[in-house]
């Protein structure tokens, strides 16, 4: 029996831009922390080894610091288990790329880190297991990266556990032809006991034609986006695939890996998901017309681990000026208690005083006319004018409210 952790798509040194610079750095830092947690998890549950199915780095031109830190964490300590990893489409094995630079340039094998740069079987030391690595050399290619394993079929007397390690898209749906497509039944056809895949960011496992789950994507070890929100919009990160920010590159806001146990060759593997990410990314939308602000404040101030939550809260609805003035309170909770980069977007919140309040807020003078005019402009078909008018309306209420005699 062997037990190993399957992770992928670490995207260390990830390009992330849609937060303030300090927050970006902290979010990138969280990926290293999560990697460390992966290492610690492996030690905790005493797995035999770890496989990482590509995209260790976000790009082949990442900084030396990132490359060195990643190596150091993966290399671990003398008691750590070995790590087998391959290049993915973000960090393909290209001349002058990260894999040809220090410390990854050092002669293989390292003590514990095994970067598998050749498509040839590698026996796991001390175990009756062979890894069939499928490193990528291009960002996009039309070849099946696992095709070479056909040249090494399982012989009838071979009892070695065969593990495929690849980075690409399982061709189980319409996909771009150059997205390193892998035959949907590759594990069974190639005689593999388990095919560890990377490339898709959400955790998933797939059954072969014999009904056994031998193929799985571990998902990214640390979230990269808010669920349900475009990655391009949410973080500034984008994939290199032809179809860009497709659904398969969306995670569900938490970092995951798989614990795989294989009792013997030919025996179906047991696949258990693990959450190992540092942060949770949560994008939430609240309708203030339905939920009073007080409840929202109470809710967000009582949540667990807010410091490990990257929150993107969007509010909408119609509120009274008095209520709108309290939004600042909620905003401070989001900005101060939650992880750096958390935000509160109240642009869609409309302020509408009651008929009784109207006179109280704007009076019967010029301001009343201004308010009427702004309301007209807020209905304009010109988006820019509409936006300015909306903001001006909020300001009007805000200033008028502040100027009320206390």
């Amino acid at each position, binding site marked *: 029996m062997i037990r190993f952790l399957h992770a992928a798509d670490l995207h260390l040194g*990830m390009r*992330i831009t849609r937060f303030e610079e300090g927050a970006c750095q902290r979010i990138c830092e969280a990926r290293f922390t999560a990697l460390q947690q992966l290492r610690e998890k492996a030690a905790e549950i005493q797995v035999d080894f770890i496989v990482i199915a590509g995209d260790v780095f976000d790009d*082949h031109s*990442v900084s030396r610091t990132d490359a060195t830190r990643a190596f150091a964490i993966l290399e671990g300590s003398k008691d750590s288990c070995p790590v087998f990893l391959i290049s993915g489409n973000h960090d393909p094995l*290209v001349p002058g790329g990260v894999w040809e630079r220090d410390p990854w340039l050092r002669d293989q094998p390292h003590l514990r880190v095994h970067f598998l740069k050749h498509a040839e079987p590698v026996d796991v030391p001390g175990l009756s297991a062979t890894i069939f690595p499928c490193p990528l050399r291009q960002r996009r290619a039309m070849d099946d990266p696992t095709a070479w394993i056909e040249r090494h079929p399982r012989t009838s007397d071979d009892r070695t556990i065969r593990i495929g390690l690849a980075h690409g898209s399982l061709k189980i749906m319409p996909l771009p032809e150059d997205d390193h497509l892998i035959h949907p039944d590759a594990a069974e056809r190639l005689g593999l006991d388990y095919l560890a895949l990377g490339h898709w960011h959400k955790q998933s496992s797939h059954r072969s034609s014999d009904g056994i789950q031998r193929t799985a994507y571990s998902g990214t070890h640390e979230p990269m986006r808010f669920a349900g929100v475009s990655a391009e919009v949410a973080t500034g990160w984008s994939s290199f695939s032809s179809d860009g920010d497709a659904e398969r590159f969306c995670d569900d806001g938490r970092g995951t890996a798989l614990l795989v146990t294989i009792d013997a060759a030919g025996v179906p593997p047991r696949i258990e998901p693990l959450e190992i990410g540092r942060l949770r990314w949560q994008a939430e939308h609240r309708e203030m017309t339905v939920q009073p602000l007080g409840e929202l404040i109470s809710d967000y101030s009582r949540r667990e681990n807010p410091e490990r939550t990257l929150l993107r809260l969007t509010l909408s609805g119609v509120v009274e000026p008095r209520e709108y003035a309290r939004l600042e309170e909620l905003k401070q909770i989001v900005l101060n208690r939650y992880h750096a980069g958390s935000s509160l977007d109240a642009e869609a919140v409309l302020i509408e005083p009651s008929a009784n309040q109207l006179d109280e807020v704007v009076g*019967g003078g*010029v*301001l009343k*006319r201004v308010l009427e005019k702004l309301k007209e402009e807020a209905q304009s078909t010109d988006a820019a004018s509409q936006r300015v008018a909306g903001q001006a309306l909020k300001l009007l209420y805000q200033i008028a409210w502040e100027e009320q005699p206390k």
Partner: protein
Amino acid sequence: VILEGFEIENWSCIRKASVPDLPPSGLIVLHGPNRTGKSSIVQALRACLMDYASTTTALKSWYPRGTGEKPVVCVTFRTGGRSYRIKKCFGSNKSELASQTATGDWRIETQSAADAHERTCGLVGGSDSAKGLHQLLWLTQAEFHLPEAKKFDAGVQAQLRGILGVLQTPLDDRFIEHVKERWSVWYSGQRKTGKQQQIKAGCKLAENLQRLTADQQVLHDSESKFREMEGLLRHAEDLEQALRDLNRQVEERTGELASRQEEHQRSQSRIVARQQAEKDHAVAEKERVSALDEQQQRAAASNRCQADEHALEPAREKMEATAQRVNELEITRTKQRATLLAQRDKRRYLQQRANQVAARLGALGDAEKLSAAQEDLNRTQAIADEVDGLRSFLADNPAPDAKQLDELKENRQKVARLQADCDAASMHLTIAPVANAVAARLALDNRPPKELPDSAAPAIHTVRRKADLFIVGFGRVEVTRGTDQADVDQIEEELRCCNEEFSNAVAAFGITGNDPNALDQLIHRAAEHRLKHADFASKMKELKKLAPAGLEPLEAKVRQLKTKAEDVSGVETAGVEPLPDVRNDLDQLAATLQQQLGEADDGIKGLESEGDAIEEKLRVARLEEMAAKEALAAGMATAKSSREELDRLRPVEQIAQRISDANRALEDAQVRLERTTLTNDELTIDERLKAAEQAVAALQSQIADSTRKFDVIRGRLLESEGLHARRSSLAARVDELTRLTERESLEKDAVDRLYTLFEECREKQLGTLLGPIHDRVLGWMRVLDIGDYQQVRFNDAFLPEKLMNRDGTAEFTVAEESTGAQEQIGMLVRLALGSTLASTAEPAVAILDDPLTHCDIGRLSKMRSILRSAAEGNPNLTPPAGPLQIVVLTCHPEWFRDERATVIDLESPEVMIRLPV
């Protein structure tokens, strides 16, 4: 409040003024010339109704001077539907406020000075005539500016708001101040309507935008580099693929090359044998061909030798015939040349004779010319001698010209006159002193003075030049003899100068100045000179004509002709045949000789032509002879060469043996060739081997090239380490700045929009509220024809701020208008606002002291109707315009008088009595 009447006593210059029963509305004109006391009336009314209690001591300056009387002012006014009478005896505590009862009686309300004052102020609306509605309607003399907005009475403004409506609430004020404060974060100065203002440099937004632009540029560069790297990456992939293909091809081609090399090795012995056979065959073939060639050459040389020898005989015959022809032509030419020489000798003789005749004729002509020239020379010589004589005379006997002569004559006349002056008789000086006359001294002709005798008998003194008489107690008496211009000394000096000048002048002509006939001699000499000069000029003219270049050319010509005559006589003696001496005979002989010469020339010409023809024939014959000789020589040389060539070739037998040997060697080589015939593969093995080697080399070169490129890309990609992080960091900064600037720009735009809208709405509200006032004022302005304005913009204080032109494109301040127009606009606004605050139940009084002083006559007439209209009021307007009681104090009653105005003459003793000045 309106005035019903007033009485004033002892106020300033007013002894007594009484104006009762004023009409409740309409125009009331109180007029009088300057210094009548109009302004004093206004001051008295102000003091009595509002400004002072009777006990005040502040009004002493208004007390009448020198009378000791104190002012008493009594004003009857109506307010709140009742009539009141206030009487104040200033300088005392005597005051009385009374109200009129329904029966017309007066009921005293109070007699306390303070109470009366206080209650009166309450009734008329204030204790200060410069505030409240009075600020608008009670104008001091010549005042026409409207009050400033900040100084305009707040109570009046409040009343106007009460009538016209709320313009801007305190919340509005605080709001717009807050907005302006925020607005000034991004903008400087004042917001300008209709203008897109630039954000101020140095504000955070401007700084962020600047940083964003800079960061975007850096990010753009970084992204460009990233794209370049991606391109290199793709290129590297292509190169890697290509290298794999090339290596595979090299592998294949290297195997192919090895097989070619093995094949080449195998074929080598057969190829060498074949090559030797081919070589031997080629040598044999060459030898055979050479032998056959030699055989053919010998046959051809033999034929050519025979033909050349046969061709020699005709050439020899032709050469002999041409030589004979040349000899014949040479004999003919010798004879013809002798005839030509004889003919030429004859012509030479004739020419010689003709020349002699011509020389003789020339000599005859020259002799005639010599004679004429000699004659001309002699005549010219005589004239020249005469000219020389005249020139010598004139030089030896100089004479003055006319001007000099006149000057000399004038000199002599002057000398005569001066001499006459000098020679005039002396003067007698008679001195006859009275008895006991004071002593006197007399000096005569510069001699020492002498005491005059004191006898009473007259003494006569002769004075030549000068007498000086010194009289004690009187002074000196000088008597000098002379002309009007000079005394005797001066005349004598002038005479001496004239004589000296004359002597100098005549000395130049060889005459002494002492000679009494000097002038006559010079006159005579000048006359003689005039005659000689005429003759001299005539001779000179003739000489110039005969010998313009002097005598030398004439003498040279004579010498030349003499020499020529001598030469001709010498030639004549050399002739053999004598020539006639007569010109006619000579002319006839010359003609004959000329004819003979022509005939000789024709003969010579014919002979020369004939000689040329013979020469041409001879030249042709000689050429033919030369050609024949050359042909013969060539034929002989060719024959010799042919013979030598034939001798050089091998004998026929030897050549036949050589051909036979060559044929045998060729047959032997042919046999060997047939034995070593090569297959197609053997034939092409070298080429194929070379092609395989080249293919491998080309592939290896391509591999080297691709490897080099691959290494270059590797190097570039190695350099890109950290690019991803830099891009990411830059993009994060740009994103953050974009978010920040977008957010702040939105905030800025929203604040600006709020500001703009507030101003617009405020303007609109102002327009709505002040509409009635605006319409009345603008209507009146159009009546007065003040500018061509479309709109008058009022400020918050209900005062005009700006004037908009007809098309709304420009706005002006009231101060930009003329002084007259400013006064009129001010008056119109006062009337409009006053009417708004007045009502039918409570009309208001407007007291205008000396108004419209800057108004022209045309506008005054229109202004009068406006004042009347304002005074009447208009209940149909919204809000209604109340009636006004307009009291005008003026020294120009004609400006305001009309049929409905109440006109009061302040000069009338029934109205006002002034204190004596």
